[in-house]
């Protein structure tokens, strides 16, 4: 069993540079967990602590229930894949992959069998004689992964392994890696700054900022129930729109959300109001909605239909952007500019008025002071 546990782990460089602060995180056996965040958020430091390449300043790090703070990197039973491959350029793919076993002095026949097995899995069988220097970017990456996997370590660590491949190859390798990990069932920690990669591949994602885990959950939880504005902004592309609003509760359990000016004034009752944390009495909030979660009720040259629902609001089209899979509108909602995703067949022009509707369960609310979500967490 190779679950990983961080218990109050800190990484401090020098006297005061706190790269990782009080991390408490568990990775289950066989799980694919991504550490996601902007550069400098502490994700690589975290990974390097697991690998044993960085000392742990405070706290306990366990692999398979064993505290490993002082265990040598070579004795931790982890394998690591680097962004820059770190292959021996003038060795063949075969020799590169076999290297960890050769180093251990394993039997040659046994090495050959293992290299062939792992190469088949990674579709490298045709490239075993090719020198590393002559491989393409994606091929080098696969050789690097094969070399990491051949040791049959119980934990696989990857630091931005595909971020510098070109878009097509990245999309392909992303799928291949995710599939391979599921088939092997090897506990994996994956560092990336690319939210799409993390969503596509992970069982769970830890979103980090300034050394602190902002939220740890499944892709579904992070996308649909972001714990704060940082997560809401970081996950999803194009990012969520935020409209500064005031939230008021009245006696009968209804909630009113409105902007300072006119135009945006939503009253929520019953089930919708119940989605909001009762602990939040009222005050300044951000109303958050993703471009994909707007519905357009009235379109070009159409009279926006009068809507009885107060979660509909009129907006003026500033820009229309045609697309193949999705089209987009930039629209003026009160004094705020929002991005709205629409069907590729929709056609709008600058100056059109549209009625934007928001489905009851598709918006988010954040406390404007703390930037924390004030939505109740739903079991998913």
């Amino acid at each position, binding site marked *: 069993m190779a679950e990983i546990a961080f218990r109050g782990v800190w990484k401090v460089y020098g006297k005061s540079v706190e790269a990782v602060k009080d991390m408490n995180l568990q990775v289950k056996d066989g799980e694919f967990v991504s550490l996601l965040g902007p550069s400098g958020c502490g994700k690589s430091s975290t990974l390097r602590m697991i690998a044993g390449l960085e000392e742990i300043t405070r706290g306990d790090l366990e692999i398979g229930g064993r505290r490993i703070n002082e265990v040598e990197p070579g004795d931790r039973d982890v394998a690591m894949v680097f962004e820059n491959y770190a292959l021996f350029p003038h060795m063949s793919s075969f020799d590169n992959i076999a290297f960890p076993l050769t180093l251990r002095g394993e039997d040659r026949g046994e090495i050959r069998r293992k290299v062939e097995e792992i190469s088949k899995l990674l579709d490298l069988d045709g490239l075993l004689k090719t020198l590393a220097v002559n491989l393409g970017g994606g091929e080098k990456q696969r050789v690097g992964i094969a070399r990491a996997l051949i040791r049959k370590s119980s934990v696989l660590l990857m630091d931005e392994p595909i971020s510098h491949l*070109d878009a*097509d190859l990245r*999309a392909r390798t*992303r*799928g*291949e890696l*995710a*599939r391979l990990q*599921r*088939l092997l069932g090897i506990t994996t920690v994956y560092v990336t700054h690319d*939210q*799409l990669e993390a*969503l*596509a*591949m992970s069982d769970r994602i830890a979103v980090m900022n300034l050394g602190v885990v902002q939220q740890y959950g499944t*892709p*579904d939880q992070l*996308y649909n129930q972001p714990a704060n504005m940082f997560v809401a902004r970081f*996950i*999803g*592309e*194009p*990012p969520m729109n935020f409209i500064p609003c005031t939230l008021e509760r009245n006696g009968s359990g209804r909630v009113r959300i409105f902007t300072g000016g006119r135009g945006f004034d939503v009253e929520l009752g019953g089930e919708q109001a119940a989605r909001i944390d009762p602990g939040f009495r009222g005050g300044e909030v951000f109303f958050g909605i*993703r471009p*994909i979660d707007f519905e357009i009720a009235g379109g070009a040259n159409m009279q926006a239909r009068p809507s009885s629902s107060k979660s509909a609001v009129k907006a003026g089209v*500033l*820009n*229309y*952007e*045609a*697309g*193949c*899979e999705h089209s*987009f509108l*930039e629209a003026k909602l009160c004094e705020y500019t929002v*991005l709205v995703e629409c069907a590729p067949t929709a056609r709008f022009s*600058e100056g059109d008025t549209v009625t934007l509707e928001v489905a009851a369960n598709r918006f988010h609310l954040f406390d404007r002071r703390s930037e924390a979500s004030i939505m109740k967490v739903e079991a998913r």
Partner: protein
Amino acid sequence: MGIELTLEGITKTYGKVTAVSDLGFTVKPGELFALLGPSGAGKSTTVNLIAGIEKPDKGEIRAGGRSILALRPQERDFAMVFESYALYPHLTVAENMAFPLRAPVRATRYSSADIQKRVAETARMLEIHELLARYPKELSGGQKQRVGLGRALVRDSQLFLLDEPIAHLDAKLRHHMRGELKKLQKKSGRTTVLATPDYAEVVAMADRAAVLNHGVSEQIGTPIELFSRPANVVVAQAIGDPPINLLNCEVANRDGCFYISGAGFSLQCNDRLQAALRHLPVGAAASLGIRPSEISIHRDPAQGLIRGEVYVFEPLGGEAVATVSVEGKLVKVLCSWSSSLKIGDKVSLSFDLDTVHVFNRDTGRALYA
């Protein structure tokens, strides 16, 4: 007003490498014309040839009806935006933007007040008006790129050359800039050539585009034409993400009815496909092109036209990509996240025959009725 730009039979080689081969197109006055292709396709070479930074080995370039091949870059006076910003490090944002207006050849054209007004207006449009006093080293990559754009946009040039102008911007700003650039281009009416590897940019902004591949123009048309009626496999694959699926197939004529069949499927053609397939030489191989967004995925293996097994499922936020193995051939499907499929799930795929494309597999050419 913009000028007409014409390229005729342009060829450019570097040593043994042919960067552009027999390239020809006309950009109408006021048009936004895109050059779409991956790196190495010849986009930047073409832009540099138009700007006069490079000289063609063969061919003719005319602007406003007159040959410009003998003119030096500064005499052509085209405004150019590079991907690499090329800002002056010792000048502020405002000074960088004003620089082309203060150049000796134009010194008499603009008054100081005029320059200030143009810089301020352009900066506001690009949302860099609060950065005017900063130096390039104090800017992020996206901000630098907007300053580079601003420097080109302040001028009254007759032709804009944009080489991947918004590639480095973050998602939100990219959407904003696509809209703003297009609006600005239409308002100013200036002829514009945009080089980009991003088909979404082309669809969002361009009036027409040339799809370039290894220095050759594969097709010229409006974005809708390129998407809905690609001339060949290269163009079909250049537009759309994930790219179009291509399945090898055989065509059989049974009792006057055409069937397309391949590993894991056999489809009876409708009238449209039937008419298209008449252009396929007898015995020639074909391939079937289906866009990921046109495929529906079903948990019931009997419901669709093609059966397969889930190879990998990738939620991307809002939507998901399911990769399905159809007898070993991988097919990508754009579907809803809530389908939440697992590796190994047995599924079936369906699609409207009116949305598929057929190609001659030997020549790559698309077949149309």
